[in-house]
């Protein structure tokens, strides 16, 4: 891929695989929003599935890492996530503290391993 836009084909794929499947739900929410109870059982299930999908994406990046992340050993990536989570909990659920701690453990470990 060269240049700023690169391949127009890739842009078309973005709309088919990314933009449309995503915007459908927002527009449905806009269209039918009035009649649905936010606490209905269906929405509890939808939220649970959506949360689990998000968790799957997180796991995929850590378990099957892309690009440069693949150069970090498995145990170090898992350890960094665990350390970040512990700090996140200790810091009264500070996202920022958790991210920084996870990064420090991973970068520090990788640097130490050489």
């Amino acid at each position, binding site marked *: *891929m060269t*240049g*700023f836009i*690169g*391949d127009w084909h890739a*842009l078309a*794929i*973005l*709309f088919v*695989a*990314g*933009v449309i*499947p*995503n915007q459908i*739900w*927002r*527009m449905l*929410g*806009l269209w039918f*929003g009035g009649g*649905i109870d936010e606490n209905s059982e269906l*929405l*509890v*299930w*939808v*939220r*649970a*599935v*959506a*949360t*689990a*999908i*998000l*968790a*799957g*994406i*997180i796991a*995929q*990046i*850590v*378990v099957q*890492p*892309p*690009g*440069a*992340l693949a*150069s*970090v050993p498995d145990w170090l990536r898992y350890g*960094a996530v665990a350390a*970040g*989570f512990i700090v*996140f909990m200790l810091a009264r*659920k500070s*996202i920022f503290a958790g*991210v920084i701690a*996870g*990064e420090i453990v*991973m*970068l520090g470990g*990788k640097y130490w391993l050489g």
Partner: protein
Amino acid sequence: MALPPLDSPQWQTSFRAFLWGARSIGATVLTLVLFATYLGIGALAHDSGFSLGWTLASTAFVWAGPAQIIVITTLGSGATVLQAAIAVTVSAIRLFPMVVSVLPLMRTEDTKRRHLILVAHLTAVTLWVECYRFLPQVPRNRRIVFIHGLGLGLVSVCLIANTIGYALAANLTPLFAAGMLMLTPLAFLFSTARNCRELADVIALVLGLLLFPLAALLNSGVDILVSGVVAGTIAYGVHRARAGVVRARA
């Protein structure tokens, strides 16, 4: 930064309200989290072989980090367009309840549906959370334009972060490139954990993490979908069972 009181003349023009919305991106730590996430997405897109223009278009038109990451990782790892579209469709379902719950906060008697299109587009996890925090401090007739300012401000921050992440991924040492790619799972994990409101959400998160490696053994191309639906349904089942126990006791 504090917003002006509800009766302040600052709210008299739409333009001012828009600017207050845009300025409010400086009043939330979530802006920093978004910045880190989109830095990571820029780096991920670079390492997966997408152009910078493509990456910015995905941020502007998709405007949902998880969906963007699914598109990048699935297409980048050779899945078909259909597989990517299915995974995004399912991951984006969560936008539906968010839009449904956020729009009543800013509707007035004169509000037409078309006035809310841009708000619906801008709705994603961060905006959804911030609506509950900021909107009580904004006069009702200025809320839509305030959210336009806040949302477009956040999009701008993310476009800048994408560009920086993309450029850095091309030029950084492998160590720091790895660090940037790691920003995405960390930021998502903790922001999701923070948004867990009920036991069902916690179980869905934990099971979703644990079941993905198992589902990946199937190598179906829709592994995320399989683990997500299974983990989410189990979590919902636990929620139902507990609700039943509570009802039986009462």
